[in-house]
């Protein structure tokens, strides 16, 4: 069976490189790689396309602490010029809102660092709000879960379907009486196109 060696300069037919085994499996030996040139993507069985390095992915953090945003049942929407992007392939993330550049399955997640909690703060909820649906990813007694300390951190994520131009952002809400809950600088929002 002919076998192909990509040696960096020429395509050679050799015997010990990319191998066809049992007529159905291609094996790439150690030290050899397969490069995908179509926008960095790999198409697999059924036409599914695996995301490549140029596809949407982002990580952003709150630039500075946002004081007294909730705690009295105020629904805090974490949008506005409060975010600093660690990376944002495709520039799809603006001021807390991610806009899907194409239809696909995305993973979206967030880390919330909440501070200023007291025993007056009971129920808390966190949602990842996309155009097609809202994901109620967290609903807890924040004071009890934090074992009675004023600062807690938690992370949540979802895998969701997004159509091109759909948006996503996060909301955070704490009850019940005192609007003294801050969202601090480790608070992050992140996501990536899966396929």
């Amino acid at each position, binding site marked *: 069976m002919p076998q192909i060696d990509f040696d960096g300069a020429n395509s050679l037919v050799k015997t010990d490189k990319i191998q066809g085994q049992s007529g159905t499996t291609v094996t790439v030996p150690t030290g050899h790689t397969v490069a995908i040139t179509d926008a960095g993507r790999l198409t697999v069985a059924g036409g599914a396309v695996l995301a490549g390095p140029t596809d949407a992915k982002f990580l952003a953090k709150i630039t500075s602490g946002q004081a007294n945003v909730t705690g009295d049942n105020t629904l805090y929407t974490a949008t506005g010029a409060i975010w600093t992007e660690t990376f944002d392939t495709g520039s799809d993330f603006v001021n807390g809102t991610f806009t899907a550049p194409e239809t696909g399955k995305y993973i979206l997640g967030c880390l919330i660092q909440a501070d200023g909690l007291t025993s007056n703060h009971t129920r808390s909820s966190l949602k990842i709000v996309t155009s*097609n649906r809202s994901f109620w990813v967290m609903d807890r007694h924040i004071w*009890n879960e934090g074992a009675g300390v004023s600062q807690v951190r938690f992370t949540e994520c979802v895998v969701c379907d997004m*159509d*091109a*131009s*759909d948006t996503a952002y996060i909301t955070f809400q704490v009850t019940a009486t005192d609007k003294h809950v801050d969202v601090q600088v480790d608070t992050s929002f992140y996501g990536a196109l899966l396929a």
Partner: protein
Amino acid sequence: MKLTEKQLNVLNHVVVDGQEWADNAIKEEHVIAKVTTHEASYDEAVAKGNYLNRKQRDEVERDLEEKRRTNNAPN
């Protein structure tokens, strides 16, 4: 973007405010694609009767949630 009544209905089936979504879409073709994707689901839902669009469904869900919160406050 100027939407037909059917396009707006289909978008409102999926998102809270179809016109706002369309106005903020990156490309007009994204609007067309989203309508195409969800049109069958919209038609099916309407055919079942007692149709509620996304905004109306959210309001029902919100009311239920308020009741759950009231009746099941955490300890």
